[in-house]
């Protein structure tokens, strides 16, 4: 459908000594119109991990091509379905490719690839099923005031609805074991998927741990990010999803 053939994952996804990483770690990057940032995001991850899956969520720009050029395998949604939908597609594809650990990573440059190792280690060791990045566990993260306030409200709401108390409930940097990725059910297509993932962790009794991660807010990522009002939409979608389940 997209014409060009992607770089493919080798059938025997073994360890890559050059990268010093386990070859069964797959990094999933959902992306929608991230042409300016996706190349750098993919390259930074591929410097450490061989297997990068970019889910092009119906972009109208050259996101898919740039991701492919940077060495990612691109899975393309014909139309935009939302970050939650793209993330689920990426997880499903990673499972089909034999991933043992699946990492989710944002395309807009907010995340740092050197944080992935700390997320992956507890999952690879088998001590935890899911690790969740937290920007609030690091004091050197500079978080805009309004964004900080909205995130704190999200933390409180998640605690009330899911019973899980976290320091950061809407961080896109996470790692799942294969079993966890198979078990969690992501039905929310848009941004409410983040709350849904927390809910699924609680409902399915998955072992989780928060890991301090760096977040860098740039003019680009702030423009692409959610507006303050969108937070209420996320909450409504999440509650409606729980009622309609």
């Amino acid at each position: 459908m997209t014409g060009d053939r992607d770089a493919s994952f080798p059938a025997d996804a073994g360890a890559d000594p050059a990268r010093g990483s386990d070859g069964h770690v797959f990094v999933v990057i959902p992306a929608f119109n991230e042409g300016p940032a996706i190349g750098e995001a993919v390259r930074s991850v591929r410097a450490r991990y061989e297997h990068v899956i970019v889910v092009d969520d119906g972009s109208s720009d050259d996101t898919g091509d740039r991701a492919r050029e940077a060495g990612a395998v691109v899975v393309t949604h014909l139309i935009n379905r939302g970050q939650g939908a793209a993330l689920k597609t990426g997880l499903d594809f990673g499972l089909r490719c034999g991933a043992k650990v699946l990492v989710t990573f944002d395309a807009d440059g907010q995340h740092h690839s050197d944080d992935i190792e700390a997320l992956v280690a507890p999952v690879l060791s088998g001590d935890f099923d899911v690790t969740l990045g937290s920007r609030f566990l690091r004091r050197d993260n500079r978080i805009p005031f309004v964004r900080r306030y909205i995130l704190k409200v999200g933390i409180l709401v998640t605690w009330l609805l899911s019973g899980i108390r976290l320091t950061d409930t809407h961080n896109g940097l996470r790692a799942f074991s294969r079993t966890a990725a198979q078990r969690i059910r992501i039905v929310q297509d848009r941004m409410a998927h983040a709350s849904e993932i927390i809910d699924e962790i609680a409902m399915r009794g998955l072992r989780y741990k928060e890991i301090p991660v760096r977040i860098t807010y740039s003019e680009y990522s702030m423009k692409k990010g959610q507006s303050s009002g969108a937070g209420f939409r996320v909450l409504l979608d999440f509650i409606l999803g729980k009622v309609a389940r």
Partner: protein
Amino acid sequence: MLTIQVLVVGFALFALALAVSRFRKRSIGLLEFLVWFSFWSAVGVVGVVPDITYRFAALLGVGRGVDAVSYVTLLMLCYLAFRQRIASRNLEQQLTQLVRRLALEDAERRR
């Protein structure tokens, strides 16, 4: 009969005819037809005998007939809006599943 009564009864008859037509063309099932038939029949009856709403209001403990009808109508509209939202959400999910399936099949082909 007041003008508004004529309009209400006229519209109710039109809606009834539409419900019958849709049922005969099998656009709607029996249950849905019976629901709409009952509803528009009730609207027609209220249009002919508006005082009947006062009895209905007394039953509910509400002062005026029109208030009782308004409250019930509001509740029904909220319920229908909720049902519509759920149906729309289900359609969205089905669309996502279709898009995902096509994306995964395409990616598998190119592996």
